[in-house]
C-alpha cells in the first residue's frame, strides 16, 4: 500500500479548482456517477482509493473517493450517494454545471504491488465506488496474464447494485464477480445472502491473497473476520475507513480515529489488532 500521500507540492490543497460536469450516469435511485473535467488548472491525478473534496458551490464540501483510475483525459470520476445537502447538490448537478475539486488526499489501495497473487475485493453498498478504480487496474492486468481477481459485492436489493457497466467489463476481463443482495424478487440471477457468505465459494488461495475491503464499518469488520477465518493473513487485508472530513490536510483533527488522522493516514489502512479494537470501541 502506498503511504500517506497528500496532494503534491504546488497544488492548492485548500482552494477548490473549478471543474465542469461532462457526463452523468444514474446508477441507482440515489447514486449518481459524475465525470468532471477541469475548466483550467487540474488537480494532480489521484490513485485508486484516494479521495477529493468536492464542493457544491453555495452548499458545502464533502469527501468523495475517485471511482475510476486516472486516464489520459484529465477528467476525474466520482460516484456519489445522495444522503444530505452536499451529496444531493452533486447528484442533481447537470452536464455543464461547475463543481469545485481539491485533492487528491489520503492513502490509496496500493495496486502497484498487487496483481501477482490473488486479490479479493469485498464491497458493500456505496463502498464499491472507492474500489472501482483499483479493480479497473487489476482487471486490465488480468487481461494480460496478471494474478487472479475476485470481487464480492453486497447490496440491499437488486435495484441498489451500482456500477453495472463496470461489473460487466470486469467479468469480460476475466475477473470473478459475484453479487449478493439481502433479498430479491424471484427471477434475480445473483445471490441472496450476506456478502461474507460469498467468500468461501470464490476459490481464492488464502495464503497468497491480498484483500481490499470497503463498505459500512460493521460490514468491514464482519468481512475481515470472515477473510481471516478462511486463512487470509490479517496483514494482507486493506480496508478503507471513513470519518467526517473537513480540511483533508491533517490540520483540523475532524477525521481522527485513535492515533490516526484518516485524511492523511487513511482512508486505506492495513488491518491490525489495534484497528479491530478501535472499530469495536468506537461503536459502543
Amino acid at each position, binding site marked *: 500500500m502506498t503511504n500517506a500521500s497528500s496532494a503534491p507540492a504546488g497544488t492548492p490543497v485548500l482552494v477548490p479548482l473549478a471543474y465542469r460536469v461532462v457526463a452523468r450516469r444514474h446508477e441507482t435511485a440515489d447514486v449518481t456517477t459524475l465525470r468532471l473535467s477541469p475548466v483550467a488548472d487540474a488537480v494532480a491525478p489521484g490513485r485508486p482509493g484516494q479521495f477529493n473534496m468536492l464542493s457544491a458551490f453555495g452548499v458545502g464540501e464533502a469527501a468523495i473517493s475517485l471511482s475510476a483510475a486516472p486516464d489520459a483525459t484529465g477528467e476525474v470520476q466520482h460516484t456519489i450517494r445522495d444522503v444530505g445537502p452536499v451529496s444531493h447538490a452533486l447528484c442533481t448537478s447537470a452536464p455543464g454545471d461547475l463543481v469545485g475539486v481539491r485533492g487528491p488526499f489520503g492513502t490509496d489501495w496500493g495496486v502497484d504491488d498487487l496483481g501477482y497473487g490473488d486479490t479479493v475485493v469485498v464491497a458493500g453498498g*456505496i463502498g464499491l465506488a472507492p474500489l472501482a478504480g483499483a479493480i479497473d487496474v487489476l482487471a486490465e492486468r488480468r487481461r494480460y496474464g496478471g494474478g487472479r481477481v475476485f470481487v464480492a459485492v*453486497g447490496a*440491499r436489493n437488486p435495484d441498489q447494485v451500482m456500477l453495472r457497466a463496470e461489473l460487466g467489463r470486469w467479468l469480460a476481463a476475466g475477473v470473478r464477480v459475484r453479487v449478493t443482495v439481502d433479498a430479491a424478487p424471484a427471477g434475480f440471477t445473483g445471490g441472496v445472502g450476506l456478502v461474507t457468505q460469498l467468500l468461501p*465459494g470464490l476459490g481464492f488461495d488464502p495464503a497468497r491473497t491480498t484483500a481490499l475491503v*470497503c*463498505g459500512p464499518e*460493521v460490514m468491514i469488520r464482519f468481512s475481515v473476520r470472515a477473510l481471516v477465518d478462511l486463512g487470509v493473513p490479517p496483514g494482507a487485508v486493506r480496508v478503507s475507513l471513513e470519518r467526517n472530513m473537513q480540511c483533508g490536510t491533517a490540520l483540523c483533527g475532524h477525521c481522527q480515529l485513535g492515533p490516526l488522522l484518516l485524511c492523511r493516514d487513511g482512508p486505506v489502512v492495513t488491518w491490525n489488532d489495534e484497528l479491530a479494537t478501535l472499530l469495536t470501541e468506537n461503536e459502543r
Partner: protein
Amino acid sequence: MIQTLPELIAAHPLFAGLPGDVAELVAGCARTVAFGPGRLIFSEGERAETLYLLRRGRVALEVRRPGKAPLMVETLSAGALLGWSWLLPPYRWHLDARALGTVLAVAIDADCLRAKADKDPEFGYRLLQRMSAVIVDRLQATRFRLLDLYGAVAP
C-alpha cells in the same frame, strides 16, 4: 469420474472429515437426485422428509407473497445443505426451495436418518453438531442482514 454415494457424502462439507463409516451409514438412506431449472424442490407447508446435500447448481429459498412475485431470502450453492425442517416436529417446510438452474444433489431420507441417529447416539451427536454449525452460520448472517448493512448513509 463416477463417484459412489459414500464418496459423494464424504466429500460434502456437512460430513467431510468424519470417520469413513459415517458416510457408509448415511449412504444407506441416500440417493442422487437432479432438478431442472425452475423446479420446485420442496414447498412451504409440505411434510419435510429429505435433507439435500447440494453438489452442483444453485437453489433459491423463497417466501410466497399474495399478489406478488415470491421473495428470494437466500440462495444456496454447491457444498451447502438444503433443508433442516425434517430435524424437529412437526416436520414441515417453512419456505419454498426452487432450482435456479440444473441442480444435482444427494437426497437423504429423513425418517431413515433420524432412525440411525436414534440407534447410534454418537453418530446422532455428530450429525447434530454439524447441522447446528450450519444453522448458527445462517442465523448470524440473517442477523447481520437485519442491520441493513449497505443501506447506511456512507461507506
